């Protein structure tokens, strides 16, 4: 509707211009832990906007920043991340569990205890056995997050047969004990228990995508209404004050009473709405065309730059011609000019050419493919690919759509016959993550850290076992046994300086195979209306903006 209005407005402007012609013959990077900034008003309804509807409003399925931000204070996992900005926000803290897990048996057994007296937002008591149910539900739904949990004993078999239970999880509803046995040690498992893929859910929750009718949660807020594609609403969880808030007093209860999120697909309109106070917060950053202006005008009062640990990249399908030839992929890497993409993103991206982004343990800067069209053309000649017809994928959200168009043009310059497909941002990742979608040759993607561990940039995105038929995240279908082995080995170890060096080496090894053409790491932002306390708003590196951190002045 907004687009239609804008279109009509342009036509009207055009008409006015023509009639005229005829008649005369046209940041600050805060790293402090947030929380209630103090002095703000209690209560109120937050009107927020997203540029696209999250991929899912179901904790088992969502695997985008939009979805996680939308549900962070609704579905609390056994462990969670600290309600804080920056590095402090990467700390894993107890969620529904009383304390961090006791790790025994050489790193293979994790023991946790559920806090007593917890209830879901519909009043159902939370039981220890809800955890294995959530894990099984997630795997049954072929969630993109399932590879994280396949190291649980019997989980791999469960994923194949979808017949339970998973023998590696033992629970005791009376004591609240949850014992998880892994096939082998896994250095990232504590972080992975903090993701909402495995947030406990009532055991009568249907095994289907519940985005239109999100299930009950345990957080201070609950989603009361969801209209996929349009928006959703929150109210306070009535059992928070009665039960959960008492059981986990360190978890912020939130200041506002209600929130309403509306999808406004034109970020220009979002900015205007924030300026006018029609909405109080936009989840996505201002559009590239307004970014500098908004930054100059509102930084420190309503606007804050939020550095992220992310990689923006173009993927190439390594299983099919022409990108099954490493020379072709390397040629593409030489041809992509990260400097051009910095301009396309209006300075919101810093050029990098590797898998691991700055700020991630194990990051060591290197540049294997400095922009060189001559070298790219040379490699193309050597490779001489027979199949030059490819489809290039991107979403419709600016400036990712322009990045996709840029990539399309680069591939044309290399001699490919390209077809560009721009898919609505709401379901872009669902479409390109589905193996039955035809023509998945190359395209745009991005990745924000799930948790501060370099494995998070390899296992879900570049390990052979992460290639899934639906909700696939390994878009390059990269499956190199030596790399798989190294990812698995490093994943089993606790992170230390030796492991960091090994990840840096792995980064280089993978980039020599060039399944991606990475081009940058992104900064995001917090932009609120003048009614909101900017200082109190928390941007967590894993979950983004916490709903509990918003408060009116």
């Amino acid at each position: 509707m907004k687009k239609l209005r804008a279109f009509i407005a342009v036509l009207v402007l055009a008409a006015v211009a023509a009639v005229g012609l005829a008649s005369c013959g046209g940041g600050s990077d805060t790293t402090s832990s947030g929380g209630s900034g103090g002095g703000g008003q209690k209560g109120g309804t937050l009107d927020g906007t997203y540029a696209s509807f999250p991929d899912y409003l179901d904790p088992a399925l969502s695997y985008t920043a939009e979805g996680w931000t939308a549900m962070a204070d609704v579905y609390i996992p056994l462990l969670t991340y600290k309600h804080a900005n920056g590095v402090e926000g990467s700390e894993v803290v107890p969620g529904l569990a009383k304390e961090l897990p006791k790790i025994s048996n050489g790193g293979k057994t994790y023991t946790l205890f559920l806090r007593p007296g917890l209830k879901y937002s519909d009043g159902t008591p939370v039981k220890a056995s809800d955890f294995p149910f959530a894990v099984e539900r997630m795997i049954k739904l072929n969630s993109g997050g399932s590879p994280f949990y396949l190291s649980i004993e019997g989980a791999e078999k469960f994923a194949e047969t979808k017949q339970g239970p998973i023998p590696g999880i033992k629970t005791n509803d009376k004591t609240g004990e949850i014992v998880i046995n892994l096939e082998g040690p896994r250095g990232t498992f504590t972080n992975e228990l903090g993701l909402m893929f495995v947030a406990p859910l009532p055991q009568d929750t249907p095994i289907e995508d519940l985005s239109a009718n999100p299930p009950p949660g345990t957080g201070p807020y609950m989603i009361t209404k969801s209209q996929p594609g349009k928006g959703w609403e929150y109210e306070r969880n009535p059992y928070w004050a009665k039960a959960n808030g008492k059981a986990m007093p360190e978890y912020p209860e939130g200041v506002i009473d209600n929130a309403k999120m509306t999808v406004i697909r034109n970020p220009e309109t979002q900015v205007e709405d924030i300026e006018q106070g029609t909405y109080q917060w936009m989840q996505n950053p201002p559009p590239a065309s307004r970014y500098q202006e908004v930054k100059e005008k509102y930084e420190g009062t309503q606007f804050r730059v939020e550095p992220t640990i992310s990689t923006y990249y173009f993927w190439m399908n390594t299983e099919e011609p022409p990108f099954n030839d490493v020379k072709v992929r390397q040629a593409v890497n030489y041809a992509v000019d990260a400097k051009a993409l910095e301009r396309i993103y209006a300075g919101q991206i810093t050029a990098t050419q590797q898998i691991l982004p700055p700020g991630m343990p194990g990051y060591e800067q290197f540049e294997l493919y400095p922009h060189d069209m001559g070298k790219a053309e040379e490699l193309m000649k050597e490779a001489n690919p027979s199949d030059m017809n490819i489809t290039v994928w991107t979403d419709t959200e600016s400036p990712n759509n322009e990045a996709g168009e840029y990539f399309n043009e680069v591939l044309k310059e290399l001699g490919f016959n390209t077809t560009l497909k721009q898919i609505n941002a709401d379901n872009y990742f669902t479409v390109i993550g589905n193996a039955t979608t035809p023509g998945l040759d190359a395209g745009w993607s991005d990745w924000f850290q799930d948790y501060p561990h370099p494995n998070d940039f390899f296992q879900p995105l570049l390990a052979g076992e992460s290639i899934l038929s639906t909700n696939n995240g390994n878009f390059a279908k990269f499956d190199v046994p030596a790399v798989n082995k190294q990812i698995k080995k490093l994943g089993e170890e606790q992170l230390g300086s030796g492991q960091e060096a090994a990840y840096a080496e792995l980064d280089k090894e993978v980039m020599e195979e060039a399944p991606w053409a990475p081009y940058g790491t992104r900064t995001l932002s917090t932009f609120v209306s003048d009614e909101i306390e900017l200082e109190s708003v928390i941007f967590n590196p894993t979950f983004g903006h916490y709903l509990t951190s918003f408060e009116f002045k």
Partner: protein
Amino acid sequence: MEERGSEVERGPWALALRRFLRNRLAVAFLGVFLLIVVFVLAAPLWAHHVAHTGPNEEHTVEQITVNGEKRDVVTVEGKPIGPQWFGAGGKFFLGADSRLGRDEMVRLMYGGRTSLLVGISAALLATILAIVLGLMAGYFGGWVDSLIARSLDVIWSLPVFLIGLAVGIALAVGGLKIGPLELSSGSLWNPILIISIFTVPYIARPIRGEVLSLSQKEFVEAAIAQGASPGRVMFTEILPNLASTVIVFFTLMIANSMLFEAGLSFLGAGVQPPNSSWGTMITVGVDLLRIQPLLAILPGVMIMLTVLSLNIVGDALRDALDPRGKGRLDAALQFEAQSAATRPVREASLT
């Protein structure tokens, strides 16, 4: 007396031409339309000899020399260069179109070719289909008429723009494959087919009405009496008498199809990027409306001028070919009634 006598000697087409030429406004707008056609046909010449770039060529990190001074085509902050007129020898005459740094003038010219091509092709296809359906329905009557007329009613009753949008998006993702017919997702045939199918009723219904009336005429009865086959009667006796109606509708349908295309492309369901049409250019321009308003206004002006000129020429043709204008008036009223009926549905569903 002498003039009247000479008019009598002229044929109906010559008389129509004379009447048309008397309409100075129509002649002026015909000139405007022809100028637009020349403008878009000259796209390769401008691109090759003046701008030295193609419509999809990106110049994001390049610099150009404007009056001896080096300037970024796109600044580090992502702002595309504005109109340079002839300051850079014709390069970026109207500036760059986006952060991709494509030449706006070149894209405007090529975009016009796309918009006109889609508009004319869709109108032509719709007109041909409408003629065949209208002739069959009007001539055979009975169940054939009922079947065709009800099918047209069904299409007419659909919220055309919304259905076009949904089909356009579906085709933009997966293309179309029906038996031997295969269209890739980025094909221009996708918007052409969508537009033509949904606009057939606007022409087929008035044609059917006219065929019903013509079928009762003596010359048709005479042809049937002489043993002429239905096909011969329809295509050699009735069709020539529909020429004036068809010409008028064809002209108006080009304008209508161009607007339809612009709307679909603006909403991402018509011409697919990186190809430009005036509709897609408005989409790109809207993002930069505050800093480079011309990027959205110029293609808007081009659409408006083209549609306005075609409408005025179409109306003048109707006056010239059918001075009583009854058939056209009826059709126009039907068209308007239909548009009014579908408008609230579009508004409501897009909110």
